[in-house]
């Protein structure tokens, strides 16, 4: 998937990983727009670092894992360390979202999170579950900040799960959630923030949704 130049660049970036990261990929052979490409992309990443362990699951055959990770669409990527951090990618993380994937790998591996003290204080006492669905298109330059922020919140708090959803692969979700512009972050199915909202604004909305 990646040409040699990009592979070199990725290799340099992933050299800063320190702890091993597990990537769970869910695919199926038929009726999956970008399963094959996503698998090839992850193979490319595995080829430049020994810090990534890739597990591939078939959606039809591995129903136990599908249930365990609550996989809803294909292809699906889970980025985790020894425990599931609630970080998901639905659809191929190509275009601008490739940076979101690298960001998730580095964050889980290094444990470095960039959040304000206010946000951390709120997350430390968060009791209720929060699900964030960030709708994106691969050509949207304003989308990665929203995905990275949602994934950072999920990594920091056990209560939060965060999904990148690549809309052009799942048009039915665009209809279901009424998405007509990206990025859009849907909070607990009902509330939403449109545009690349800064941390403080997303936090306000999460508080409203609880």
């Amino acid at each position, binding site marked *: *998937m*990646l040409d040699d130049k*990009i592979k070199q*660049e*990725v290799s340099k*970036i992933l050299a800063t990983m320190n702890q091993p990261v597990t990537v769970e990929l869910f695919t199926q052979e038929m009726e999956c727009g970008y399963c094959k*490409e996503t698998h090839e*992309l992850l193979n490319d990443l595995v080829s430049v670092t020994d810090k990534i362990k890739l597990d591939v699951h078939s959606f039809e055959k591995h129903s136990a894992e599908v249930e365990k990770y609550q996989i809803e669409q294909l292809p699906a990527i889970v980025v985790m360390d020894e425990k599931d951090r609630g970080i998901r990618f639905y659809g*191929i993380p*190509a*275009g*601008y979202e*490739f*940076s979101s994937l*690298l*960001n998730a790998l*580095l964050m889980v591996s290094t444990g470095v999170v*960039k959040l*304000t003290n206010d946000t951390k204080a709120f997350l430390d006492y968060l009791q209720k579950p929060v699900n964030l669905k960030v709708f994106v*298109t*691969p*050509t*949207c*330059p*304003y*989308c*990665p*900040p929203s995905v*990275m922020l949602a994934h950072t919140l999920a990594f920091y708090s056990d209560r939060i799960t965060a999904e990148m959803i690549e*809309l*052009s692969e799942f048009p039915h979700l*665009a209809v279901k959630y*009424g*998405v*007509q*512009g*990206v990025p*859009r972050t849907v909070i607990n199915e009902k509330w939403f923030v*449109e*545009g*690349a909202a*800064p*941390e*403080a604004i997303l936090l306000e909305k999460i508080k409203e949704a609880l």
Partner: protein
Amino acid sequence: MDFNISLTSAAKPNELYDLIIIGGGPAGLTAGLYAARYKLKTLMIEKMAVSGGQLTSTEWVENYPGFPEPVLGQKLAQDMEKQAKLFGLEVITEEVTKVELAGNIKQVITPYAVWKAKAILISTGSSPRLLNVPGEKEYKGNGVSYCATCDGPLYPDKTIAVVGGGNTAFEESLFLAKYASKIYLIHRSDNYRAEKILQDRVNANPKIELMPFFEVVKIDFDNSEGRRLILNSNKTDDSVVPAQAGTHAVFNKELDSRLRGNDGLGDSVENEVILPVDGIFVFIGNDPNTKLFTGLLELENGYIITDRAHQTSVEGVWAAGDVQAKALRQVATAVGDGACAAYWINKYIEDWSE
């Protein structure tokens, strides 16, 4: 398939930078490239994870010299960033909330840190101007868009209105025509600022219909009959026959009669015209991103006033690109501003003392 890599640098807030660049569009990236080559310790603070500013929300750039084949705006932005980083520019993703510009050491404050530098370059650019009509705020991001490359793919075989008469409106209409089945290009007059070459291409595109002398007065997207725009036809020239008594005269009589329901496309309410659409894209110009600097720097209509060295009214603070008070706002002029500002900043840093 494209794979973009833009990750934040591991910069340290306790260091004193020679230069902090606020905003990562073409002006900032060029200044960053030049400053890094002058060996200035330079930090760029960009609120988006991806540099490039407005370059990233346009599809093709055709008037940037050196690219006889048009270059993708997103590709050009990515390459500019890559080139500047190659020479040592640090780029971080944070949103600046406050600046302290007085004195020898300037401060740039974000939710995460206080950054310090000897000199500041402001290249915050401009943002799309709003129509300021009812319904716009309510449906922003939900049918009202300012970014064709972002939201175009959400309108396959749909009907779209595009508002504006400049290069952006025409370029983005051509891009959107790849997805939508019908585009109404609405402009308040027939005096288009778009380059002639773009006008020719739009005229040749069967999916795009020009609607001169129309103004959007309301974005009526919660109507029970479906999403629609309320337009006013504002041609009052005597040479045009009034469509009917009591209404404004209409430039495009054929179109007007269609919109007024003669073929079922829409119907009229008094002197307004109804246009059913699935979404609306607004490209009516830009406003400078100078809220942070109001009261701190001399501005002209919101744009930052600079001297010939691109320095602002405050010593040690420069401005480059769209945010500057000037005549032409293009990628080509932005990179020139950025390079020139970096030259004078380097001189300033050579003489700088605490």
